[in-house]
């Protein structure tokens, strides 16, 4: 009996030592907490596509430090319960992760990453959410107020005849804050911002909302709501005689396939702002566009499709430039090295442009205003 007990103790000691000498893995595995099923599965699909595309390019060029990188999609199904459990599983031995997506899952699961000191890039949410989890994530966007006020002011400056602006606002996450930033930009030019018209998330008919807005006699309208809702509102506006299409401005989150599918030619002439310029003509972007089109029935890449593409490259840079080995025994230290690197990366070569980070916030990302024409975006101006 004693002998058997001794053997058991020896075996336990042996197994406990196994972890100490664990070699670095043969590939870099990056889990991506993403909504692959549920209401925003279509967005989750192209976010994941972007990350996979970057991994493919990196692997074709020899991998990261000679080892291939693999993106592992982890479905959170837009469910905070599932998101938190999946994050709890990942934090044990993951070096760095992508996601989660979107805000409710971020709020439920990022505290677990923070508590365990694991970096996870939340590249679709605003600074206002991301900064709560610094330094274990970074913000993909600058401060809403700093970024959007001058952007909307640049749009409004085009039209000296515009005196009164109304906003359609849907109460979701950071969107009311974005609407407030628009107000700051417009009132700064001496224009009047009328009472906002709230768009219910589950709105089915949009006529009454449009009538309410038109009763205020606006010269310009800003849309801060879901893409399909914005398209339907514009259709209703046109039905009621709205002519000045360029006096309509759609916010960045409306720039999604549903907008163009629902709006068709009715949204031609409306303006929209965003952070990527699809008209860019560089070999890297053209290859991205072509690959996206060939795997998505000829569609153009949506605006968020590059976020996790760039995020994977940022992780690659972090690993290569900080000497991260991927060894499980150095997990804690190497997670910190990656997080610190990303907080203040300088001259990062994104697919669209180069940018710097300062304390987790991008400092010099440009924004663009476009005019919509037959499902395409025609550049109006770049706002820095």
């Amino acid at each position, binding site marked *: 009996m004693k002998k058997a007990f001794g053997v058991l103790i020896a075996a336990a000691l042996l197994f406990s030592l196994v972890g100490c000498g664990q070699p670095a893995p043969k590939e870099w595995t990056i889990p991506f907490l993403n909504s*692959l*099923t*549920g209401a925003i599965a279509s967005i989750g699909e192209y976010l994941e596509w972007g990350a996979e595309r970057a991994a493919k390019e990196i692997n074709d060029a020899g991998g990261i430090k000679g080892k291939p990188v693999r993106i592992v*999609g*982890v*479905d959170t*199904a837009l*469910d*905070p*319960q*599932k998101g*938190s*459990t*999946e994050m*709890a*599983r990942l*934090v*044990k031995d993951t070096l760095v992760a992508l996601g989660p997506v979107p*805000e*409710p899952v971020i*709020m*439920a*699961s990022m*505290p*677990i990453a923070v*508590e*365990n000191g694991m970096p996870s890039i939340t590249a679709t949410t605003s600074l*206002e*959410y991301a900064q*709560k989890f610094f330094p274990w994530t970074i913000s993909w966007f600058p401060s809403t107020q700093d970024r959007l006020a001058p952007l909307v002011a640049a749009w409004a400056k085009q039209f000296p005849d515009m005196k009164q602006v109304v906003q359609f606002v849907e*109460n*979701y*996450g*950071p*969107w*009311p*804050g974005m609407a407030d930033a628009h107000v700051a930009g417009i009132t700064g030019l001496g224009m009047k911002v009328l009472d906002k018209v709230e768009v219910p998330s589950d709105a089915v008919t949009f006529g009454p909302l449009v009538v309410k807005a038109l009763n205020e006699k606006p010269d310009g309208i800003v849309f801060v709501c879901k893409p399909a809702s914005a398209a339907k509102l514009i259709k209703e506006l046109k039905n009621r005689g709205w002519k000045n299409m360029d006096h309509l401005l759609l916010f960045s989150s409306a720039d999604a396939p549903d907008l163009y599918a629902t709006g068709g030619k009715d949204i031609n002439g409306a303006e929209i702002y965003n952070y990527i310029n699809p008209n860019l003509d560089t070999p890297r972007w053209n290859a991205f566009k072509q690959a996206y089109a060939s795997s998505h029935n000829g569609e153009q890449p949506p605006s968020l499709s590059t976020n996790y593409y760039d995020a994977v490259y940022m992780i690659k840079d972090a690993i290569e430039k900080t000497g991260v080995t991927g060894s499980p025994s150095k997990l804690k230290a190497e997670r910190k090295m990656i997080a610190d690197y990303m907080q203040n990366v300088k001259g990062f070569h994104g697919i669209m442009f180069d940018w710097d980070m300062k304390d987790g916030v991008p400092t010099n990302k440009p924004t663009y205003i476009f005019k919509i024409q037959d499902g395409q975006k025609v550049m109006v101006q770049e706002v820095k």
Partner: protein
Amino acid sequence: MPLPLYYFLSITAVNILLSWALYLPYRVAHLHFITVANMAISGYTAAWLVMTLNVPFAWALLAGFAMGGIVGWLVSLFIGDAPTFAVVIVGFTFIFIARTVIENLKAVGGTMGIFGLPNIGGSPDTHRWTIMAILAGLLLLVGFLLHRFDHSRLGRAASAVFVDKELAASLGVDIRGLGMLLQTVSCTIAGGAGVLYGFIYKSFHLDFFTFALVGIAMTIIFVGGYATQWGTVVLAPILYGVPLLFPPSIQEWRIVIYGALLVLVLVLKPEGFITRRFVFSIESFLSGSRKKRNIS
């Protein structure tokens, strides 16, 4: 305790409490979805107390229970004896009202939510063990009370109301009083569950309290068995835990599997898996064993 196990157990416990909160008024045929709104109201209240007024968690939790009970009682004054359909409509409406009020309240973060709730007891480990201990205690307490209720005169009265209100009234059952009592207790349980739900995540967002939560609780109750409290206990961990073990290709079909399961059970086994007859036979078996032990 391993982190995944903690999240699995704690969220399962909250799902059981929420399902029991729905089960209780359903004993008198009230599908009382106001419970989900109460989770949000109580949760946000407790979070505001902790974050803004630095109220200790224990008091905030009690305030959450109290808030749930008060809201439930106030609403029950109007729908204590309402038909099932009216209660459902009031519940859905109340969820919308609660969401609209909360998303317009800057004090609780509006549409952004509340971040960075503190660790109870100062450290993450203490936080987790405290949450688990409270949830375990609550499950035992609420489970015991439900068991007592189901075997009491009130429970039998509730069964009579479920089958035929008029018959129950003719037997002297105070339908309105019983409905009010069950709705108030149900909302009290939901209030406490809501506080604990947010403190598990250490944050509150309105999308934690959506109709998806109603769907989860409904599936747990109706597939598990709506005629006893035990169906919930059996199905909550299965429904939440088993899909986590599915390979990703099957996980994509999770919602379809839930839906198909619900339809199949409603068609083939309308009372759910754990029926009253099944529980009765288990209880008879156990009491028989006990008697035998006593004799020996």
